[in-house]
């Protein structure tokens, strides 16, 4: 599956990598301001930083140009573009804040403007993979420093003094020798005429002078709008003459419409039209499934109209998909040898010779994203031009796919990115925007396509379903000398290429082949698994089942040897070292290994930190238990301790969660805490309830009553977050996703401590009852 190793290749069938000249007018239009740093062609560059990242290898790489990202108005208002999508991580605040920090802008005079989808102009915009801060900390600092330098140079020229004597300080440029000062706005027009300084010569601020970065004092830019109902999400876009549509889609992936009768639907008040929507065969990346659309004057009428449709479907080949039977297939596959993807020593021989073998077979079902905002998009297609408003994580990819779907040039497509009411990977797939584009073209009018919650559950790109089987061989002293991990799950590659049955490198690299334990004999295997529905990225992806299995197994080994969980974990991690797994393509989240190695000193550190702060080993009341787990993902290190309480009826509560994270250099610790608090809730949700199951090819769950998520009355009473202070040159690493994987295994280890019951299949459901 070489084609999928680099996520950029997942994007499109054809790519336009040509760097266009961007006119002054288009940048002016883009920024919507009338003066400032708005000049000609952007500089596409990749610089030597203190550390290297994989940013330059993403589609369209990185653009470092203040003229693209920053505008200063005559009144001093600084406008900074946010080119990544806001789905709740705080990125729309964090990245502009970095620019403001370096340019010495006063944050209260900064406006953040959302960039539309244009990767030639802005660089990569795929907001996924927990990459934004790690790829853009340095570029955003460079952009800010360039802007600052241009302001300083312009003031120096006006005053006839050397530029080295002028300093930008808090929204002013200052010549301290003469006491002269100018506001940013007063010098902006001249600064715009300055040439952009070379990146190599830029002087970045000394971190000790930071006012905003690392402090956590700045609230998110949308806070007031969110609390007053003014924040605009995809569903909130309204255009003159806009129609409202819902679509009935084939209930089985790859199914087709046989016939439909629109008569009853057309009688519903407010319904204006019923029409077929083009569908693509499965698999075809993010192309729409097709079906029948009901067009109405409001969404309520469209939904009522759809309920009245008479539809006959041909379910096709996936109509036999059955989760109960499929689980057995996965379990059987996990018990036989599979494609070897990492081999060190001789695990077979060592397992045979082991004094004791501990075996765990762990099952995780499909999971749905269920973002609070179901998929939704507005499109206005006129002739060969299309404008889209949508909550998409990948505005650049959406632009490409809309152009391809409509058969128009990419330059004729504008993708406006609204706020995302949750993303979690679902909104990396732009199928809903493509549906809106197709419908608008047919209707000749702007249209909003709204998915209902039932649509969302029935037609998600689901998290995979998996069996992870681990066999750990122990010598007579209880030391682990052999480790065999077989991971069986349908691959995301199956959404892009029919018949893909092995995990792609990026999936193998999420907790399987990058397993950090110091064990002499290791075998990681990946038996085949076929897909029967659309598989996609879900927050933290394959790390969920892998961390669940590996860290549950640590608990099982602790139990088998009668040792403490934490001590067992540290013994398995072993000596502080850089792990060099014998793997052809480690992937490493797309990052260069020199900057982002698997560093067991950092892994140990988060275990020790959470154990200390989280009071590992404390006395807990009867019926309570403590569990611990650690996992490296998205090149961050995270350890979690969960305290669980299980009453005599098997009812589970979580009194306390402690998490330590080492995400390297960071921007906003307050948002890191919110991500980790939220990850605990998502981890608890998937552990307690998370299951999408299929019968006769159809998803059995419909809404939040049968696909449950954790509510406030079952949330942990307290989640404490501890952030490891970074070293001076520690590269930034992921935050959005890494909090999820360690939660479920820490909870399972806690449940075992509390009850003696080892849960190996999620969700917990009723397993603790009776």
């Amino acid at each position, binding site marked *: 599956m070489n084609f999928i190793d680099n996520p950029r290749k997942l994007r499109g069938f054809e790519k336009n990598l040509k760097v266009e000249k961007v006119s002054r007018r288009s940048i002016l239009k883009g920024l919507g301001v009338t003066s400032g740093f708005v000049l000609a062609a952007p500089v596409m560059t990749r610089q030597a930083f203190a550390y290297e990242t994989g940013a330059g290898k993403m589609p369209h790489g990185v653009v470092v140009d203040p003229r693209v990202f920053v505008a200063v108005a005559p009144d001093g208002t600084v406008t900074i573009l946010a080119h990544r999508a806001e789905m709740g991580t705080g990125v729309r605040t964090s990245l502009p804040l970095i620019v403001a920090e370096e340019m010495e802008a006063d944050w209260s005079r900064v406006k953040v403007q959302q960039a539309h989808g244009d990767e030639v102009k802005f660089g990569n915009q795929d907001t996924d993979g927990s990459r934004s801060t790690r790829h853009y900390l340095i570029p955003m600092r460079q952009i800010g420093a360039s802007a600052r330098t241009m302001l300083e140079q312009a003031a120096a020229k006006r005053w006839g003094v050397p530029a080295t004597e002028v300093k930008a300080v808090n929204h002013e440029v200052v010549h301290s020798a003469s006491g002269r000062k100018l506001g940013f706005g007063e010098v902006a027009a001249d600064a715009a005429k300055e040439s952009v300084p070379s990146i190599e010569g830029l002087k970045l601020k000394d971190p000790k002078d930071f006012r905003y970065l690392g402090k956590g004092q700045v609230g998110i830019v949308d806070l007031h709008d969110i609390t007053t109902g003014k924040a605009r999400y995809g569903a909130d876009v309204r255009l003159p003459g806009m129609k409202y549509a819902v679509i009935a889609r084939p209930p089985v992936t790859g199914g087709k419409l046989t016939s439909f009768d629109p008569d009853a639907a057309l009688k519903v008040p407010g319904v204006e039209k019923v029409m077929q929507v083009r569908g693509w065969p499965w698999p075809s990346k993010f192309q729409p499934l097709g079906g029948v659309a009901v067009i109405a004057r409001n969404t309520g009428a469209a939904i009522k109209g759809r309920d009245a449709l008479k539809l006959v479907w041909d379910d096709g080949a996936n109509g036999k998909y059955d989760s109960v039977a499929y689980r057995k297939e996965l379990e059987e596959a996990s018990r036989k040898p599979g494609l070897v993807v990492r081999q060190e020593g001789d695990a077979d021989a060592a397992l045979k010779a082991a004094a004791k073998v501990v075996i765990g077979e762990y099952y995780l079902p499909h999971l749905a994203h269920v973002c*609070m*905002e179901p998929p939704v998009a507005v499109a206005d297609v006129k002739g060969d031009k299309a404008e889209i408003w949508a909550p998409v994580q990948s505005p650049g990819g959406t632009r490409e796919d809309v152009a391809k779907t409509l058969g128009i040039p990419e330059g004729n497509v504008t993708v406006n990115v609204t706020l995302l009411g949750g993303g979690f990977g679902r909104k990396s797939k732009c199928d809903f925007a493509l549906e809106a584009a197709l419908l608008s073209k047919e209707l000749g009018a702007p249209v909003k396509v709204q998915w209902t919650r039932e649509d969302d559950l029935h037609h998600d790109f689901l998290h995979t379903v998996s069996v992870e089987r681990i066999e750990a061989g122990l010598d007579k002293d209880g030391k682990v000398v052999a480790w065999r991990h077989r991971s069986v799950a349908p691959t995301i590659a199956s959404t892009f290429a029919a018949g893909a049955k092995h995990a792609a490198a990026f999936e193998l690299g999420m907790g399987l082949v990058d397993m950090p334990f110091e064990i002499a004999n290791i075998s990681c295997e990946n038996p085949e698994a076929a897909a029967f529905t659309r598989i996609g990225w879900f927050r933290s992806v394959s790390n969920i089942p892998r961390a669940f299995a590996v860290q549950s197994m640590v608990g099982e080994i602790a139990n088998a040897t009668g040792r403490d969980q934490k001590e067992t974990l540290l013994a398995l991690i072993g000596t502080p070292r850089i792990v060099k797994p014998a793997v052809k393509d480690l992937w490493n989240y797309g990052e260069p290994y020199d900057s982002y190695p698997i560093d067991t000193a950092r892994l140990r550190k988060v275990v020790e930190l959470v154990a200390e702060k989280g009071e590992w080993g404390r006395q807990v009341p009867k019926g309570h238990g403590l569990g611990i787990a650690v996992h490296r993902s998205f090149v961050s290190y995270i350890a979690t301790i969960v305290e669980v309480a299980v009453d005599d009826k098997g009812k589970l509560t979580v009194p306390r969660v402690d998490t330590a994270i080492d995400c390297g250099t960071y921007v906003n610790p307050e948002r890191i805490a919110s991500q980790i608090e939220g990850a605990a809730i998502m981890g608890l949700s998937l552990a307690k309830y998370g299951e999408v199951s299929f019968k006769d090819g159809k998803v059995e769950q419909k809404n939040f009553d049968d696909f449950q998520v954790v509510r406030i009355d079952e949330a942990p009473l307290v989640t404490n977050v501890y952030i490891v202070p970074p070293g001076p040159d520690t590269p930034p690493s992921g935050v959005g996703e890494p909090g999820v994987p360690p939660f479920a295994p820490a909870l399972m280890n806690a449940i075992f401590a509390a009850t003696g019951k080892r849960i190996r299949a999620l969700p917990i459901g009723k397993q603790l009852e009776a």
Partner: protein
Amino acid sequence: MIKVKINGQEKSWDGDPDLPLLWFLRDEAGLTGTKFGCGQALCGACTVIVDKEAVRSCITSINDVAGREVTTIEGLHPDGDHPVQKAWRQVNVPQCGFCQAGQIMQAAALLMDNPKPSHDQIREAMSGNICRCGCYQRIENAVHLASTGV
């Protein structure tokens, strides 16, 4: 013709009387602060206050609120400075923010009914409102803060 007062303004509707209030608010009246999350009163994203009670507008028809007073997030306070809104900002509650209008309306209704709720009462009253981002700890703290003075 159905007449209803929304945020102090008289509105009328002569279409389908069964139209859920949610879609009347969002699509016909242009008040998009109230969100659609499930359509089945399972998630609370669409919560508005009718007279003094929190209701799920996705299963409440426009006919059900004829002659009554509906308050949405846009009408909770003219400047957005209701104690609950202020507390929300002070505690930095939201992540994606999509469910927050419903959460805030539910919390405002709770405090009208019970100005000093205990933590258990807060969790009980807010348990119909889902936040997939998982801001619950902060929601609880913000409601508590709003009840004790912001």
